[in-house]
């Protein structure tokens, strides 16, 4: 198993390199630069800045420098927020994004799993139809509609929650963002769970368990649920990577200082280092969580062997 993890991490290096390279050159080919936006900088200052950040060097040299810095864990300075390095920005924003994202993910897995299981056990009955309706709504309504509606209902009409803001991480401030982020995921998990649970309940070994007179609890929880959970495990990898790296919609609408906002802003401002940093962080999260999921898979399913 350890050897497998090691090998996977080894094969992740070329993948990461390809991603970094593609992202680096793609953003550089884009017209414009970090200092020719409407900043009103005089040509001299602009030239100075560009020289200071090495932007006048040949592109390949900049690329090599960037890779070198990256290897030392240095993401470089942010061009647009000159007071901060990219690393500092992540150090402030990432914990916020992770808190919101992880809460949403856990909520989605627990609630979605529960709803999906209830639906599967009551297939084609009222409870099932209710869950399907909820799941359809959750996966159909975009977050940028859910978020303002939550603000409208809980913030303005009923005045239960603040409309936005981080409030130094106060619990009430987190509810809206977490709910917005979690709803679509709850819908996805509930659907997945319902489908795989129905399939699991139909499988031959469940028929065996019933024919042996095992209790409903054992049939459902021990035999059906464990098999049904496999698709959820594979869902969790990419979902965790996406949720933990912040959501631009949620962070913008609820004014939360996560890292999700940086990306679009940075790309539009050609804040090269910040864009690259975000790409690297997202790619790293993706690789790591997919690996974790694969390892977890082996624990749930004895047929999966890594060696």
């Amino acid at each position, binding site marked *: 198993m350890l050897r497998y993890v090691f090998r996977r991490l080894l094969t992740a290096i070329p*993948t990461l390199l*390809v*991603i970094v390279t*593609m*992202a680096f050159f*793609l*953003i550089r080919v*884009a*017209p*414009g630069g970090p200092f020719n936006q409407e900043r009103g900088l005089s040509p001299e200052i602009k030239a100075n800045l560009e020289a200071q950040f090495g932007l006048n060097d040949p592109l390949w040299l900049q690329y090599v420098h960037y890779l070198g810095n990256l290897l030392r864990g240095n993401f470089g300075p942010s061009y647009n927020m000159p007071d901060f390095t990219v690393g500092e920005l992540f150090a402030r924003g990432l914990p916020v994004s992770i808190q919101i994202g992880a809460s949403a993910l856990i909520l989605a897995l627990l609630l979605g799993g529960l709803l999906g299981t209830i639906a599967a056990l009551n297939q084609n009955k009222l409870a099932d139809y209710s869950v399907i309706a909820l799941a*359809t*709504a959750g*996966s*159909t*309504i*975009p977050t*940028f*509609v859910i*978020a*303002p*509606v939550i*603000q*409208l209902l809980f913030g*303005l009409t009923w005045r239960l929650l603040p*409309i936005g803001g981080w409030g130094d991480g106060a619990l009430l401030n987190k509810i809206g963002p977490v709910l917005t982020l979690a709803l679509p995921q709850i819908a996805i998990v509930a659907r997945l769970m319902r489908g795989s649970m129905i399939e699991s309940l139909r499988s031959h070994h469940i028929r065996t368990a019933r024919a042996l007179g095992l209790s409903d609890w054992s049939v459902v929880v021990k035999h059906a649920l464990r098999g049904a959970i496999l698709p959820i495990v594979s869902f969790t990898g990419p979902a965790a990577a996406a949720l933990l790296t912040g959501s*631009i*919609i949620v962070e*913008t*609408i609820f004014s939360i200082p996560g890292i999700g906002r940086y*990306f*679009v802003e940075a*790309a*539009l401002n050609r804040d090269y280092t910040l*864009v690259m940093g*975000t*790409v690297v962080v*997202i*790619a790293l999260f*993706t*690789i790591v969580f997919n690996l974790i999921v694969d390892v977890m898979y082996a624990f749930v399913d004895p047929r999966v062997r890594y060696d």
Partner: protein
Amino acid sequence: MTDIAATAPAVVGRSLWGDAWARLKANRAAMFSLYYLAFIAILSVFGPSLVPHRYTTIYADYVRMPPSLSAYPKPDKIETALNEAIKRMRVDIKQWRQEDNRIFVTVTSRKPIDDRNVRYLDRSDAFDNTKIESKSADGLEAVMSASIRQQYFLFGTDNTGRDLLSRTLMAGRISLAIGLLAGVVAGVIGVLYGAAAGLAGGRIDEVMMRIVDVLYSLPFIFFVIMLVVFFGRNFVLMFLAVGAVLWLDMARIVRGQALSIRRQEYVQAAEAMGVGQRGILIRHVIPNLLGPVVIYMTLLVPQVIILESFLSFLGLGVQEPMTSWGVLISTGAKNIGTANWLLLFPAFFLVSTLFALNFVGDGLRDALDPRDR
């Protein structure tokens, strides 16, 4: 086959497509959604020209008017509107009265009243057809009359005083058009790429799918933003490009299907009969691919619509004064405290359309692939 069939009335079988259509027709939710989509499409295409307001017309007097079934100006607002217009004439109101749909106002001034002053009343969004009824001999007092302009804003107006109904319908036109356009682009690329990989098989397939994997691992939003940066404000080009990004899923699905169809015994049977690659492709692979492709297309179109709205929400997509549901929702989200209709109407249209597409998709899936039931 036709000439024999013509001479002898033969038994006609029901193809899988026929079966699917029958099953779809029996699915009430899907059929209702199909009608609803047609209704929304017709409304979006023809609606903007039927609504009396253009989607760009600004009614400065009617900023942020709430939706109402009765006409503007409301009776109690007539005096306000009148006072404002008269104030701009720099004259004083002596008295005013309303007869049916016309108002008569007597104004006085210390300077002689210029006839051209009627334009101030006409300029107001509340009145038109202003006339000077009579004028005192010294010209210091005049009676003007104007008819009240009855305007309906069923969905209310936005921050700059534009009619939300016409804007919502116009936005629908854009959103649906983009959804279809980019959906088709993504579909075509995905099908061609996936089918090519699936049919070629072996090394070529491996390389082609590796490329897809790499593209997958790049953050999707990164791609889109790069495209926005490249294509700028030209939204047709941009959404062709967005379509070109969304093909990955389709390519994977089609490749998987193509591979599995190639392994089917009926393809092996055709190969055993000496049927060439072309024949296998045309007679076996494509007809059997159509089902999954159709199903996935119904997923792709709402995906594109959401993506368009998302980009427009971020201000990266469709630009003012052109509009889309995403643009409207973005404005609505910023004004939920004061004018929630700006959010609610476009959100309802977007969400109901997405729901309908979803039900049609589910219906098609059930109809084309009944094993899943």
